[in-house]
């Protein structure tokens, strides 16, 4: 067994060492002991009180002996419908964890570093993530075009289909400016939530003074109801790696990190293997393909915090700091990792880049419907015949996705509500004429975001779903800013009927006032988006709210 000194010596020399060093102790001891934290504090010169506070920020670091091996059961909105409470009761010492990104094949359970799935009464098993079905609309895809092929996750499989061709061409014959031009012209925009134009982000980093520059792949995928990044990394890891290498080539970055959510331990192994293979083939590391372009790539595993998907919180987490989001501006493009120019892009965004460079900007633009450019992966889950990941042309009618592609509601049921952007876009109760693109959804007071859509049929209690959603945001609020820290708590209490005015009008006024202020003045996207839950509930389900408030009186 490694000694404390071995572990510290192994990691202290690496970039972004805190998380992997803590995981090393966590894996070795089954929890993070006081002695371990003292060794880490000394080894990395982090004040002990800071380190202690930072460790308590993360959901998955156990601080009591044996904690790491206690089962953690997903109690996300979909798993809850599938019996996660019962499953939790069946498993000794189990505790809940927020949505673990397997809403298409519930219920995920983490035991140490094993990712299992099961239902109440059934044996837990380690099964691979469901592969996306063939495109039901028989439409051309970008990200999923090659993913269903056997052996795609291996270097050979990826290369046999033209993989790393875009990188090779860029390095041998292309130029950084040329890559940026194509990405800009393609209209590719961030697929992680905020939808910022990717080419513009890369250009800003390329032009920013200072270095070394960094590419961060945001693989935190913490949004409930989102499980698309996992399937991309599991079945097409080299597409993500090639996308990162292209971003590095385009911007002059020399190092990269994949910040992977804690809940995907199997994906970590897949990525590590793929990186080793790519490095052996001269596609990563020093002097890539014999050129003078070098790019080192590291995987860093998170520890359970939705806010660490927010890019500046992520950067603080990587740097070993308390993961509060930073004040913006300045943005990561100039002041990112270690305060140096940094690209932060979502997995799907990066995986879209190699096909775009291989087939051209016009090809990608043309995949969208009408004026919309490109495609988006939708993670569809809940009360629908065929949940799963679907790559849709941007602008596709939601109705087509729900009824034609995914088979419509369950036998004898009708759709009541869908969520957008996982939970962050709130609920839609009227969605017959919605198309899947930002202009349409923003006009409805919602947004497409990372593309998680949860479907709830007529059996579901909307107020209770809203309570669960708000409880998630309260659980994940970082606690930095007042409106979100207190607001998510107060809204949860009101939805649960634990506190708040008995009078219905006064109740609605309080809920609306908290929401308005949170949305306007919160310090980051979590607090800005969270009140969409209550706002959409009041907007689209006023009768459910009234009935709920009425029932409380008796």
């Amino acid at each position, binding site marked *: 067994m490694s000694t404390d000194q071995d572990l510290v010596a192994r990691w202290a020399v690496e970039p972004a060492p805190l998380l992997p060093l803590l995981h090393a102790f966590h894996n070795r001891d089954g929890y993070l002991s*006081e002695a371990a*934290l003292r060794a880490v504090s000394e080894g990395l010169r982090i*004040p*002990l*009180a*800071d*380190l*202690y*506070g*930072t460790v*308590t*920020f993360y959901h998955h670091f156990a601080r009591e002996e044996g904690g790491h091996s206690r089962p953690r059961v997903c109690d996300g909105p979909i798993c809850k419908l599938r019996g996660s409470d019962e499953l939790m009761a069946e498993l000794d010492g189990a505790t809940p964890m927020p949505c673990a990104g397997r809403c298409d094949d519930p219920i995920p359970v983490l035991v140490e570093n094993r990712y299992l799935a099961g239902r109440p009464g059934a044996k837990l098993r380690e099964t691979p993530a469901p592969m996306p079905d063939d495109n039901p609309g028989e439409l051309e895809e970008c990200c999923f075009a090659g993913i269903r092929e056997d052996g795609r996750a291996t270097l050979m499989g990826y290369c046999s289909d033209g993989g790393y061709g875009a990188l090779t061409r860029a390095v041998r014959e292309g130029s950084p400016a040329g890559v940026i031009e194509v990405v800009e012209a393609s209209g590719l925009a961030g697929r992680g939530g905020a939808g910022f134009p990717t080419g513009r982000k890369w250009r800003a980093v390329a032009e920013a003074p200072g270095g070394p520059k960094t590419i961060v792949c945001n693989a935190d995928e913490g949004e409930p109801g989102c499980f698309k990044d996992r399937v991309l990394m599991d079945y097409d890891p080299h597409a993500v790696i090639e996308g990162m290498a292209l971003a590095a080539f385009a911007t002059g970055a020399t190092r990269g990190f994949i910040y992977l959510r804690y809940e995907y331990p199997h994906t970590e192994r897949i990525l590590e293997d793929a990186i080793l293979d790519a490095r052996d083939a001269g596609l990563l590391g020093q002097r890539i393909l014999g050129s003078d372009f070098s790019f080192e790539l590291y995987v860093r595993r998170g520890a359970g*915090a939705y*806010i660490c998907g927010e890019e500046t919180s992520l950067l603080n987490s990587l740097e070993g700091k*308390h993961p509060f989001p930073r*004040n913006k*501006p300045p943005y990561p493009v100039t002041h990112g990792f270690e305060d140096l120019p940094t690209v932060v892009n979502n997995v799907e965004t990066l995986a879209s880049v190699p096909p775009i460079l291989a087939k051209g900007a016009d090809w990608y633009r043309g995949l969208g419907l009408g004026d919309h450019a490109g495609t988006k992966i939708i993670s569809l889950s809940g009360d629908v015949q065929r949940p799963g990941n679907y790559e849709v042309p941007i602008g596709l009618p939601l109705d087509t996705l729900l009824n034609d592609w995914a088979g419509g509601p369950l036998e004898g049921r009708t759709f009541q509500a869908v969520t957008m952007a996982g939970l962050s876009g709130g609920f839609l109760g009227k969605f017959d004429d919605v198309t899947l693109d930002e202009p349409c959804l923003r006009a409805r007071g919602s947004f497409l975001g990372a593309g998680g859509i949860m479907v709830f049929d007529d059996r579901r209690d909307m107020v209770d779903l809203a309570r669960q959603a708000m409880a998630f945001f*309260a*659980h*994940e*609020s*970082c*606690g*930095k*800013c*007042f*409106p979100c*820290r*207190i*607001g*998510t*708590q*107060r809204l949860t*209490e009101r939805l649960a009927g*634990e*506190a*708040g005015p008995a009078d219905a009008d006064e109740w609605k006024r*309080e809920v609306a*006032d*908290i929401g*308005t*202020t949170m*949305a*306007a*003045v*919160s*310090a980051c996207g979590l607090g*800005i988006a969270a009140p969409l839950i209550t706002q959409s509930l009041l907007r689209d389900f006023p009768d459910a709210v009234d009935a709920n408030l009425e029932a409380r009186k008796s």
Partner: protein
Amino acid sequence: MSTITIDGQSVPFEDGETIYEVSRRLERDVPTLCYDDRLEAFGACRLCVVELEGARNPVASCTTMAADGMVVRTATEAIERHRKTLMDLVVSENPKGARIDPLRGLASQELAHLAVRYESDGSRFVGKQSGTSRPDDTNPMILRDYDNCISCYRCVRVCAEREGDYAISVANRGFETQITTEFAGLLEDSDCTFCGQCVQTCPTGALGDLRSMEAQDQPGEFEKTRSICPYCGVGCSVDILTKNEKIVGVQPAMDGPANLGALCVKGQFGWDWVDSDERLTQPLVRKDGKLVPASWEEAWERAAKGFKSVVEKHGRHAVYAVASGRAPHESAYSVQKFVRYGFGTNYVDNCSRA
């Protein structure tokens, strides 16, 4: 010259100034709770939000740099409504904080004053309280009454940024955040130096000066007298708090040129000797191993004899004098004169060297 327009008034500003700083120069009364001049702006309370033309949402003025051509409004109806909601929210988790004795600390009334300004009485947004007090921390200097904590993190930031001590930090997240030392222990077992700076920046009195608080129940208001800390050569400016002509506390002066609001444990908490019964009021000499009152003549005699015999036996360099840092210039001068001239040695020093 770059200018910014604030509430219709166009003003020049310097590079690196925030909207908040410019607004304050113009005496706009922008409310804050997480702000402390001496610390890096943090952006937690959001009370300082202002309307910025062209921005979708209000911006926190404390963290937003002034830029040429910005048009800012500091107190529109919408902005004031957000502030009212924020104040109602923060008072709802901390209803006691609106009634805190000012002896707890220099900034302890900030929340109370804003609660009055925004008429926040705790009647809206009722719900669970945050923060857990630490009555188990029985140190005699710092009260840790986290029931009143509003998670502004000024204490944590002052400890790191000003004292450089990193004794405290933030545990957990969201509504469960809690100010903590390593492993949630006692201050005494942490790196805390008991400088008291966290106490003096706390805007709610969640951290309190226990020594001063002893005078809470005495009738009357306290008075403040500006002075210099008597302990060492740094010369920190302090305000001495008195009630009925007796010292009841010391607070650092934020505008003290040597300390800018900082003190150390001695200056902050070490004032109770002034009225101590144990202070010497007359000369004492030791007789048969016991100290007994003596006349000044007898005491001088004994001291002189003692010094002389040491010098005779061990030579002049056997004497070493340390002047009190609390001594005025003239006394310190006399000490060195006495040692050099009287004994013939240069072995003389001052306790403020540390």
